[in-house]
């Protein structure tokens, strides 16, 4: 069972069976450490190639590789799993964005930026989702908790690192009301804009 072809088959079976992303360490374990990391990487790359053009893809995430359905299949996913989690409210997403882009932050920081009291419920629900956790305490009175995003957050959003977050935009000094809808639609690819603020992305190292 240790021909390269078999190794690849075992790899494929393990990746298809695992709901969580598998990293090199996990994959090595499959073969009791007898297959080198380079070989594993090469075989995983081959697998990604093999699956090219299918409705399921092998993606590279923060904690490793995982097979998942392609985003274009979303309408079918909805039919298959009608009780999938709903979209989060703006309040939740803004809180998440502050933690993701400004981490580590305290609840106070979140309140300062949003201009409203940070709801304990929102933080709780993001914690329950496994997307954020407490990474320490700020050395100020009350020793408030410092919140940061987790690997699972990156995995679930299809990212390998925080650097792959959509870059923060430089804000135009006049904020016209008119083109707002278009601007929301274009949001995911703002990274290609020349005016994206270079410094902003770097602040979340």
């Amino acid at each position, binding site marked *: 069972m240790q021909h390269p072809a078999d190794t690849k088959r075992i790899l494929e079976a393990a990746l298809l*069976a695992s709901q969580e992303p598998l990293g090199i360490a996990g994959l090595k374990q499959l073969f009791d450490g007898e297959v080198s990391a380079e070989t594993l990487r090469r075989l995983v790359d081959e697998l990604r190639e093999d699956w090219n053009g299918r409705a399921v893809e092998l993606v590279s995430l923060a904690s490793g590789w995982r097979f998942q359905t392609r985003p274009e299949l979303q309408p079918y996913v909805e039919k298959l799993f009608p009780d999938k989690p709903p979209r989060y409210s*703006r309040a939740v997403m*803004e809180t998440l964005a502050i933690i993701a882009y400004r981490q580590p932050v305290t609840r106070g920081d979140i309140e300062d*930026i949003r*201009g409203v*009291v940070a709801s304990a419920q929102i933080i709780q629900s993001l914690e329950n989702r496994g997307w954020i956790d407490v990474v320490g305490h700020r050395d100020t009175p009350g020793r408030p908790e410092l919140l940061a995003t987790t690997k699972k957050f990156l995995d679930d959003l299809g990212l390998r690192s925080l650097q792959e*977050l959509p870059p923060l935009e430089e*804000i135009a000094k006049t904020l016209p009301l008119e083109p707002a809808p278009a*601007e929301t*639609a274009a949001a995911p690819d703002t990274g290609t804009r020349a005016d994206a603020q270079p410094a902003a992305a770097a602040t979340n190292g």
Partner: protein
Amino acid sequence: MTSAFADRSAPVARIYGEPLAEMPHDLYIPPDALEVFLEAFEGPLDLLLYLIRKENLDILDIPMAPLTRQYLEYVETMRSKNLELAAEYLVMAAMLMEIKSRLLLPRPPSAEPQEEDPRAELVRRLLEYERIRKAAAALDELPQAGRDVIAISVWIESTAAGRMPGVRPQDLADAWRGLLHRARLAVHHRVTREELSVREHMSGILRALRERRVLEFRELFEPQRGVAVLVVTFLALLELARELLIEITQAGSFAPIYVKLADAASG
């Protein structure tokens, strides 16, 4: 993919189902709509950004007078309708008025030439909030595991010696509920613990009869276990008889009553 964020940038609110494109100029808003209007904003910064956009104001050189007036009119309207207004809105009102008054004060010509623009802090906060607001929208557009994409996890075929699937009582309840939903049957009554107890005794009686084929009526009862068990056992017997699973016979008055499996006669 339409995002929840897109709603915000199109109509401001919906009143009786009709989109409200912008606030009426006379600021008259029906009270119910006002509440909807308030809910459309995530807080005072969000409202301020809306007002700035609406008037196409330069965020780096905000004309404080009109902005403050508009904001206060809005807040006043809310208060006059006795609608609950988050404290943050009032704090912001105070801040706006303070900035406005500081701008009105004549500046000493030479005292502090480097004095910061009183609006600077507000502008910094508005820009930061706007940036986060957009980032939040962009994050929401990323395909999310569980929502937009499904992590593949195929069934692991167990070997013969493999472990057996685990089942919790709650799984059974869920399976039953699934049946109910699928069948779209009207829900009338519950399987109570009492009823389950009867069914449990039905199985028990059948088991006993399978071994002994015929039992005397009183052999089926265990008086030492209390009245409740007696009653349940009796109900189980009645139910078994009703479902034609057992036969209860008695040769004559006061003769022993026998219970046997309904199929024992033919089988």
